[in-house]
């Protein structure tokens, strides 16, 4: 009797959940099911539904279908459209998946409309936002978006001579005798460290210097200690650091301790770690026009210019912010979703918390680069 009741209950609960999921789906599920975020399938009879359909096709990575939805197909090829969305060279965009999107009408008339499409892409290092303002034109009783194509610069075939240093390492082998020393780990030093309390918990900010003459793979671990000496929590900098430090290079780092209050902390034990690694001084990336726009909506932005011949597939910009006394105030970061081509500026912008932005007097950016087939 009890088993039959349980079976009936499970069947009823399943039906109820299916109904709820169909009527009020989560946006990502709706997109994958071929529905708009509102959960209703539609034909492009309104500007919003036309952009909805385009976003759904992009979410499915059904590029021919997405391309076919556009009204300005004659201006570019499907390949250009694909490269606009996923990049011409391997980059974060290449492996990104459309997580969610929002369609926001800006203006509408009988014959055309302006609609903002905000696409949030998901990558292995978090999400990035791609916002496009689309003109949507009417064609009979149907609407079709005009895609504002952004054509990525192609690098012309050429030879670029590069003679930057490269470091190779021969480590101690198993056949070496007991007293034979291994290659010395690089000497690194924390030159600044400063804990701050934020709503999410305690954040430890700092800067790490490679004071050696060899490249170092670095990481920083911090342990918060209570008044009785016991460890409250241990965390490391994860990706909020530039892991590869060339000689005399400085990286900021940020370590987050969620759900910890600074009043609980008596002291902090810092543990910088360094390993000697093979590395190359190439590529060199110039950071131009760094500027912090003031609060509210404080944004630290600038342009990255790859001065070398090697294509940088992924660039990670870390911004360090100081107050008037030179005290470290905050560390922010941003991954660049497009590849850095030689001599081609790519802009970056990262938000800075409003309360901290008001204290910032100077700022500095460093960039970590990753190239497929390269050292970094």
């Amino acid at each position, binding site marked *: 009797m009890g088993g039959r009741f349980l079976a009936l209950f499970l069947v009823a609960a399943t039906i109820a959940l299916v109904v709820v999921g169909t009527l009020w789906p989560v946006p990502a599920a709706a997109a994958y099911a071929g529905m708009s975020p509102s959960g209703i399938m539609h034909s492009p009879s309104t500007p919003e539904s036309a952009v909805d359909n385009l976003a759904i096709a992009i979410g499915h990575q059904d590029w021919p279908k997405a391309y076919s939805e556009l009204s300005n197909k004659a201006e570019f090829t499907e390949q250009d459209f694909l490269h606009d969305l996923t990049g011409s060279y391997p980059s974060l965009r290449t492996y990104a998946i459309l997580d969610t999107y929002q369609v926001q009408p800006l203006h509408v008339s009988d014959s055309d409309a302006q609609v903002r499409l905000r696409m949030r892409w998901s990558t292995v290092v978090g999400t990035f936002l791609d916002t496009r303002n689309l003109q949507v034109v009417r064609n009979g009783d149907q609407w079709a978006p005009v895609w504002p194509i952004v054509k990525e610069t192609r690098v012309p075939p050429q030879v670029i001579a590069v003679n930057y240093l490269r470091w190779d390492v021969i480590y101690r082998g198993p056949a070496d005798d007991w007293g034979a*020393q291994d290659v010395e780990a690089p000497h690194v030093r924390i030159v600044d460290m400063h804990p701050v309390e934020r709503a999410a918990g305690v954040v430890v900010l700092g800067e790490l210097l490679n*004071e*050696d*003459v060899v490249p170092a793979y670095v990481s920083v671990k911090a342990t918060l200690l209570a008044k009785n000496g016991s460890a409250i929590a241990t965390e490391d900098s994860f990706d909020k650091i530039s892991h590869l430090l*060339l000689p*005399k290079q*400085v990286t900021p780092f940020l370590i987050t301790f969620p759900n910890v209050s600074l009043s609980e902390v008596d002291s902090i034990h810092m543990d910088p770690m360094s390993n000697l690694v093979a590395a190359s001084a190439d590529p060199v990336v*110039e950071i131009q*026009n760094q*500027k912090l726009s003031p609060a509210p909506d404080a944004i630290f932005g600038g342009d990255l210019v790859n001065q070398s011949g090697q294509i940088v597939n992924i660039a990670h910009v870390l911004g360090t912010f100081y107050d008037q006394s030179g005290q470290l105030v905050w560390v922010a970061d941003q991954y660049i979703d497009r590849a850095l081509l030689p001599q081609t500026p790519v802009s970056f912008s990262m938000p800075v918390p409003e309360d901290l932005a008001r204290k910032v007097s100077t700022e500095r950016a460093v960039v970590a680069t990753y190239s497929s087939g390269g050292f970094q």
Partner: protein
Amino acid sequence: MSRVRVSWLAVIVSAAVLPALAQSGALDLPKNIEAGSAFSIPTTGAGKATLYVAGPAQALKREVQLGQPIAFAAGDLSNAGHYLAVLRSDSSTETGEFDVAPASTPAALSFLAKPSRLPAGLQNGITGAVYVFDSFQNLITKPTQVNFQLSVAAAPTQARTVTTSQGAAWTEMNSATKEGNAKFVAQAGNVSAARVIQQVPGDPCGLKMSARQVGDKLQLETDPLRDCSGNAVTDGTIVTFTESWNGSQTTVDVPLKHSVAQAEVPARSGARISVATGVVMGNEIRWEGQP
């Protein structure tokens, strides 16, 4: 596996011997034996007996003829330490203890030299520690002279002689003021061990740059970077150029090449340009345009 076997044999020896110790006589044993050397133990009486010898990581069992000396060939007892010998026959048990000392001639050195890389011109920055062993890997505890030598091309060799204490000797040396690889040698008797210490330039001593306008760019270039001992700073060292203009900044991190760092930044009248490497700041230029 052999260690387990040796341990078992030691237990068996002890089990066989201990009950008989109360009625035992004393074996006539040499008091000091050098590890690996040949020696003999004289015996008295007649008949057959069994000799047990147990020591550190080694145990032996021999069937012997009483009245004849028991000969041990060179290399039979190679581990230095304290040994127990028991000669057991049907009628009596004789026991004795003896020490096997390490051979006096050094045959191997364990040489720890730290660090393998350090800045030039550092006082007592290099440490060398030596453990002296005989040919059977016994630590020679008898005081032994060890010569340390640190030699660099175009600089006088530093030498120290240290006598071991409990088998170990250590010393400190200064790194040379000139960069380059140093050969650090430890020698005891006829054996030596060598290590290579990389002496590298220290922090830059005075960082100075100049600027030159080429088109709409400023070409920035540092003077050759040297440390305070005059060594060229290692290529690959990162130098940061920062241009501040009208509330915005341009930064370039460039590696040294042939001791010089070069970068290009936009030429903007009124811009302030600074240079730094690590925690060393250089000069600042205020660019007022092409003179």
